[in-house]
């Protein structure tokens, strides 16, 4: 391995080293704050190594990993989100030393999950893809069930973890079988070689190829929780501790979508009509299904779960625009990139507020819609941040979510995808209702509340910083997006 390749691997090495360090430290110290600080420091250092690697990229490191600007951009996004999740966890697991919950393993798992996500976005080979996916997935099973009843936690957390383990295991099995079939048909697992073979005529008409791709896509659709593979999402979102939910909603889904983007743009698989049609139907079903099911929720974590299904559906529109041939792949990359950044900020912000209001000592997170009654009058700043995040999810101007949606509109219009855009508009209109319903609850005047309110936690400095930064990023990108657009165009 050359020095250049080793340099390119620096971020992955750094995050792995952080995980090992935290593990070693936790054998001797159980101080939660110290472990939290070390994890955060490790992530920041890893982020800094990215800046070193930019100069040498792109580098192919073994056939498995391609460290290019794409991988670095999404790696950076994952690390920043990871840092936010670590900061959210700090208050969530406060005073965990006095309970049977040990927070140290939580951070180790979080760091390993980040490692998995970074491998995923750098993968140029199905082998690396699967390794990354499983590193991410196996860590997540435990993170979801982290507050299990055996250590005085919540039954719902264990249920969610087991559900995710079983269903995700099935999806992984499908994926592996699909990959095996693709290998049987084409004899290679690297994306560039697959792309060359698929571009030749009738390559995808064989039974093995069709079944292989179908199974692989089903597995990926499961991880992205696209309709009809979405059943696990609300339960897992509800059961997982709030910071872990934020992690699943952003890093886990974002990394897989970035992989999907890379896979399809490298191999050109979506130029195949059957695949394009199947993906379009899945996108429409997700946009409409996600939004309609969200209407029925009274639990905000479940509500955000269904809303995330719809948002991945919106993303699929930009993605599919690339398949039409009218829209250049760089435009698709930009649209998806911008939307994902906006979605990351918004989702982290929304779950950040949920985290700020909850902690591990409660019997549940503060996740009922009623819990938010009159939040604005008790805790104006938290409420303002949450409102901004919800407006961004709804795609209202002044927020990054609007520019993201605008990007998808332009990509879709350029690709003449009128049916998908019609579903997007319909989905957005439905979506408005439940976002607004939540906002109405937040702004309800105090004297009308009949039930006894849990008093809002005083906001810690740490939380204020995180949430303020997220809100500033949200508004900043919504009002003046050119810096991010330039960055995305340079990928």
């Amino acid at each position, binding site marked *: 391995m050359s020095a250049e390749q080793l340099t390119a691997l620096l971020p992955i090495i750094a995050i792995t080293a952080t995980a090992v360090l935290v593990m070693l430290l936790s054998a001797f110290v159980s101080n939660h704050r110290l472990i939290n600080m070390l994890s955060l420091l490790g992530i920041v250092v890893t982020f800094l190594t990215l800046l070193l690697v930019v100069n040498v990229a792109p580098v192919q490191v073994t056939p498995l990993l391609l460290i290019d600007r794409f991988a670095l951009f999404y790696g950076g996004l994952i690390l920043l989100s990871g840092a936010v999740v670590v900061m959210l966890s700090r208050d969530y697991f406060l005073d965990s030393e006095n309970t049977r919950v040990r927070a140290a393993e939580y951070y180790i798992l979080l760091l390993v999950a980040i490692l998995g996500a970074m491998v995923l976005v750098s993968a140029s080979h199905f082998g690396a893809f699967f390794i990354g996916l499983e590193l991410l997935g196996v860590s997540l099973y435990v993170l979801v069930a982290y507050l299990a009843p055996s250590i005085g936690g919540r039954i719902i957390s264990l249920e969610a973890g087991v559900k995710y383990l079983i269903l995700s295991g099935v999806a992984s099995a499908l994926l592996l079988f699909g990959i095996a079939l693709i290998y049987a048909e084409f004899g290679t697992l690297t994306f560039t070689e697959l792309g060359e073979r698929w571009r030749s005529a009738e390559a995808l008409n064989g039974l093995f190829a069709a079944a292989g791709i179908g199974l692989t896509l089903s597995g990926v659709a499961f991880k992205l929780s696209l309709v009809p593979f979405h059943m696990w999402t609300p339960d897992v979102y509800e059961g997982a501790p709030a910071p872990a939910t934020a992690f699943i909603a952003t890093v886990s889904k974002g990394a897989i979508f970035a992989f999907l983007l890379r896979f399809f743009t490298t191999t050109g698989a979506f130029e195949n009509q059957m695949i394009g049609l199947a993906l379009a139907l899945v996108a429409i079903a997700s946009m409409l299904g996600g939004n309609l099911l969200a209407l029925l929720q009274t639990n905000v974590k479940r509500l955000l779960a269904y809303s995330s299904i719809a948002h991945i559906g919106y993303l699929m529109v930009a993605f599919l625009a690339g398949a039409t041939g009218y829209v250049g792949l760089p435009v698709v990359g*930009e649209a998806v990139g911008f939307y994902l950044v906006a979605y990351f900020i918004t989702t982290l912000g929304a779950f950040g507020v949920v985290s700020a209001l909850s902690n591990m000592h409660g019997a549940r997170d503060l996740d009922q819609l009623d819990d938010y009654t009159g939040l604005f*009058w008790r805790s104006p700043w938290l409420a303002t941040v949450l409102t901004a995040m919800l*407006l961004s999810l*709804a795609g*209202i*101007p*002044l927020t990054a979510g*609007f520019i993201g949606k*605008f990007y998808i*509109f*332009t990509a879709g*219009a*350029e690709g003449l995808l009128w049916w998908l*855009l019609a579903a997007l*508009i319909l989905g*957005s*209109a439905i979506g*408005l*209702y439940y976002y*607004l*319903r939540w*906002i*109405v609850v937040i*702004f309800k*005047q105090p004297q009308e509340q009949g039930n006894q309110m849990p008093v809002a936690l005083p906001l810690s400095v740490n939380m204020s910083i995180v949430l303020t930064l997220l809100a500033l990023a949200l508004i900043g990108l919504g009002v*003046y*997006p*050119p810096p991010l*657009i330039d960055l995305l*165009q340079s990928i």
Partner: protein
Amino acid sequence: MVLVWLILILFLGGILAWLADRTRLADPRWIAIATILIDLLVLISFSLSSSSVTIAGQEWWATLDLPWIPRFGIHFILAMDGLAFLMLLLTLFLGLIAVLSSWTEIKKSSGFFHFNLLWTLAGVAGVFTALDLFLFFFFWEVMLIPMYFIIAVWGHENRTYAAIKFFIFTQASGLLMLLAMVALVYFNYQQSGQLSFSYFDLLGANLSGAPVFWLMLGFFIAFVVKLPGVPLHTWLPDAHTQAPTAGSVILAGILLKTGAYGLIRFCVPLFPEESVIFAPTAMTLGVISIIYGALVAFAQTDIKRLIAYTSISHMGFVLLGVYAFNSQGYQGAVMTMLAHGMTSAALFAFAGSVQQRIHTRDMREMGGFWGSAPKMGAIVMFFSIAALGMPGLANFIGEFLVLLGAFKANSWITVVAALGLILAPIYSLVVIQRIFHGKPLVPRDISDFSSREVLMMGMMMLITIGLGLYPQPVMETVGLVLQMGVS
């Protein structure tokens, strides 16, 4: 730069009002008044000193063009012409009225209320000056959110339903418009190779082969929802009825005008040929709005609902005038917008003051108020008569010109529309009769207008009379935006 300041002053004033309330340093109501007065001063002093520039065959008093999102050819373009100036003047004046009309009504978190009020005005000011399609949409939505909060937080008994309905109607139709904008820009891009959201670049767009009619419809639906025209009006009676007084004043006086403004500024000039084809349909919708609004208004017992339906009827005249495609129709439409701004704002302010006094809007529980509140009776009598189109007052000029223009374009439709002039006296006078005459179901006295209320009503009366007797300045100011689109 003065255009930026016009908008920025309102945004900053809003933040200041909120901060002032939280720190208890000053009364947010006075900050709101001061902000609007400063803005008015800036606007008027600018209008006196301005010189005009000609862009795309049209005179503009001021323009500003800064790059914003170069990736999409989006610019920060603000410009003002006579039409925009009149609309801004109306906006700021009614903003003042709105603050005055809610002077004693808003007891809870007055700072946040005035923040929302000023931000709505800022959004509206942006809508009236933005000439980049993206920027226009941006402001179109920005004015929506604070209005939503005004209804949802300070509204009456059924406010949540009304606020969400208002928001979903406007936002969903807005998305249609956004889609039409993006498609228009991309079709233009394919033809000309220039990616631009600028109004001036798109005016002369050659769109052969594009589904232009559908794009026009996207704009039309968004603007008619706001106008509102039948059958897309159902959000309006709920929103108006549930909003607090200042909210109703702004909704009826200003926000409805953004729909009409959009038709005049964007829908017709951007799609001239399609608009001509579509004109008979649009005019028919206008007539249906006029008749339907008037008939339904007559059947109401809730006074705010009644006034809301009369708005639908009056705005039908605007739709009729815009699609008549001649100078009378156009000038009549603008005049009706200004006149309706005054009368509807005054009547909603009256309805609000009545509700504040007797805690009901049900006209069946009113009656005989003239005895205890003669000033109120006389003033409301004045505005009712103005609304029914009495010659000498502004509304008459507007509706008369609209009918004149529309008759040239389509005589049969106009004959039906003229029936509205018969229906208007019926619902207008019925308000006077039910509230001020006769014996009430529940006998009660009502306190008369305070001097604050007399002052604000007096200002609106003066303007209504002034515009009615000497409308020429308005006619000269508005120019002929529409004409160039048609020719």
